[in-house]
């Protein structure tokens, strides 16, 4: 039998012959999930054979419940009323005399109802089985222990050089469409060197001018470094300091912090 909740308390069984006072209607509405459920309850309660339902008696009992439901929750009673109408129809058809040559099975107006009841009952049994399964948070609990030394790894975005170049191409195309100046025409090597020098003088503070040049780079390297320093100076990112004539020239990063 289904379980019934009365103000949160659980009853495993309905009283054997429940007469329902109106204030217990909540109980019915909650304990029966629909007209088929109620019908099954009535049939099972009286230990009737589902295949041989005494329609008249079942209908009478059914109507008692439905009348009570109507009094309280009309919108919920709708489905029950449809069933009541179906029951009434079956009852009336059973009262009619049968045509002599009618096929017996087809002639039984209960057949469709029985089919639905049997199908419904299969699922009702399935519900009980499903509900009885061990569930997470009820019978079973998941294991999740903390990880010592955990830190969130953030894998690098999947960017390939092609993506970068493609982005650059589109930006250049766009820039060409609206800009008149030839941005992005600077030699990369000077720009890179500017970053390197700026970095160095920011870390080292005063840095000797000559120390920024690496003779190993050859003449071109020296020129690039020199151009980079001039450009940094022009953009006022660095300044030069010389204490005396012919004293070593120092470079420092401009900071106003």
């Amino acid at each position, binding site marked *: 039998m289904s379980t019934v909740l009365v103000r949160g308390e659980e009853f495993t069984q309905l009283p054997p012959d429940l007469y329902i006072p109106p204030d217990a209607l909540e109980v019915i509405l909650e304990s029966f999930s629909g007209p088929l459920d109620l019908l099954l309850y009535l049939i099972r309660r009286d230990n009737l054979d589902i295949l041989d339902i005494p329609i008249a008696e079942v209908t009478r009992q059914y109507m008692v419940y439905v009348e009570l439901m109507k009094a309280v929750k009309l919108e919920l009673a709708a*489905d029950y009323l449809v*069933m009541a109408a179906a029951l009434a129809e079956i009852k009336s058809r059973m009262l009619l005399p049968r045509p002599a040559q009618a096929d017996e099975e087809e002639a039984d107006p209960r057949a469709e109802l029985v089919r639905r009841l049997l199908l419904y*009952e299969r699922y009702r049994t*399935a519900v009980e089985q*499903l509900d009885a399964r061990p569930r997470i948070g*009820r019978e*079973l609990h998941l*294991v999740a222990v903390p*990880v010592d030394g955990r830190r969130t790894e953030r894998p690098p975005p999947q960017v390939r050089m092609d993506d970068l170049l493609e982005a650059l191409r589109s930006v250049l195309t766009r820039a060409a469409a609206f800009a008149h100046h030839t941005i992005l025409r600077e030699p990369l090597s000077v720009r890179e060197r500017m970053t390197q020098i700026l970095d160095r003088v920011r870390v080292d503070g005063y840095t000797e001018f000559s120390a920024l040049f690496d003779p190993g780079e050859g003449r071109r390297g020296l020129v690039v470094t020199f151009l980079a320093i001039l450009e940094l100076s022009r953009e006022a990112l660095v300044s030069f300091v010389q204490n005396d004539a012919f004293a070593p020239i120092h470079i420092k990063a401009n900071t106003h912090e």
Partner: protein
Amino acid sequence: MSDIQLKHILQAALFAAGEPLTLERMVALFGEEAPPDRATLLAALAEVEQDCQGGPLELQRIENAYRLQTRREFAPWLNRLFAERPARYSRAVLETLAIIAYRQPVTRGEIEAIRGVAVSSEIIRALTQREWIRQVGAKEVPGRPALYGTTRAFLEHFNLKSLEELPPLAEVHAEANAGLSDSELPEEAEGTEGPPAAAGPDTP
């Protein structure tokens, strides 16, 4: 990996994950460095399972993933650990869920035909929010009603390896079906004849 064993790494991952781990995720634990092959992994998992013997945990498979969980014998003690009582679901919700689980993909109308009562939107919404069901498509009939199916989270929550592990639908009164053959039953439930009028949500 030195003397840290594969088994221990898998155990650690299963202890820490808090959700089922697929074999792919287990392989990914090893990054580039000599990831174990499938057979080695499965052998190590068998060891993990063996280590659980006699202890409070068990290794459970959900589809192609594995998790560690406490055995149900421990529920009486563990339920005292949590102030929150496990959620209870109404019969209407469970019936709807069971019908979706067994008959998926299924429309609301078909569920109503079986239950003999309107299925409220709240029920569908509650099950969807719980992520136990999801819309898996639309039926090619007028109105194109949504078709529902269960999710991986449903299997996880009800501790099912797969849908096949659902107990078979009981054959109630199988011996006599009031003139209906067994083979006929599933067909009808397919909803081929359309929901009976009584099941419509909009009938007075």
